[in-house]
């Protein structure tokens, strides 16, 4: 298993916090219509890009980007659920910034609200940074 896959696997474990019922990994945009209400809140993890930040000799600091999209059902006038879920995810990431030693650091770079009644989303942009020989990264 590659380091990248190790990071993604660990990230899936971390994001499966108390309130999250389902975590899936996806290459494309998730078709949420395939899931039921009982499976929400759901997080879809999608890799978006990977590139070296700098190279020293044959080593490079690599960064690959992840978008974790949280889906949940809620009424229009309450935001308590969103706040709870976002706090849980931020705390879970903050408690394991190296993804169990698989990377240098996993950095939350942005959080963006979306969706509309009754299905809401929160997108977490995460950069995972690790150092590896460019031949084996």
């Amino acid at each position: 298993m590659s380091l990248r896959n190790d990071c993604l696997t660990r990230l899936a474990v971390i994001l499966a916090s108390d309130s999250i019922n389902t975590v899936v990994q996806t290459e494309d945009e998730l078709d949420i219509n395939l899931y039921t209400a009982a499976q929400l809140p759901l997080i879809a993890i999608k890799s978006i890009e990977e590139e070296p930040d700098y190279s020293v000799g044959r080593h490079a600091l690599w960064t690959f980007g992840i978008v974790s999209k949280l889906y949940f059902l809620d009424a229009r006038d309450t935001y308590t659920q969103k706040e709870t879920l976002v706090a849980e995810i931020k705390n879970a990431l903050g408690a394991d910034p190296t993804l169990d030693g698989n990377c240098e650091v996993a950095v939350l770079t942005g959080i963006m609200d979306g969706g509309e009644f009754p299905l809401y989303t929160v997108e977490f942009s995460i950069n995972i940074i690790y150092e590896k020989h460019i031949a084996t990264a």
Partner: protein
Amino acid sequence: MSVYYGTKETIITNVYNVLVSLYNSQTVDRQYVEPGNYGYPSIYINDTSQTRKRILKDVVLIEWTINLVLFVYDEGSTLSTTINTELDRVCDKLKDDPTRGGLAYNTEIERIDLEFEKPHAVALFTIKVIYLGQK
């Protein structure tokens, strides 16, 4: 999770009960019938259309349009006052609980059309109830 579901049957029962609390069971009906011996004011409930939007595999967002037809009768010169009074009563009662007893997310009064034909006046309420249904 503050999500709840409704059905047409439970929601229309709520609308019916709300209107019965204003008038009485004799002058509130589920089908459009011209008032006869029942007396005035009287009100009739007609469901007209709905739009459905799939949200999840087992959840549908439904916007259900219902028409309420209110009849009043006034032989005097205050027909417009009479219909306006009844209009306000119905609007206030519907707005008391837009969740229809915790079954829907909103009840919107979209428009009210009036028609006068002395000594009768008719008000047509177009209301939209927004709720989640389960497949």
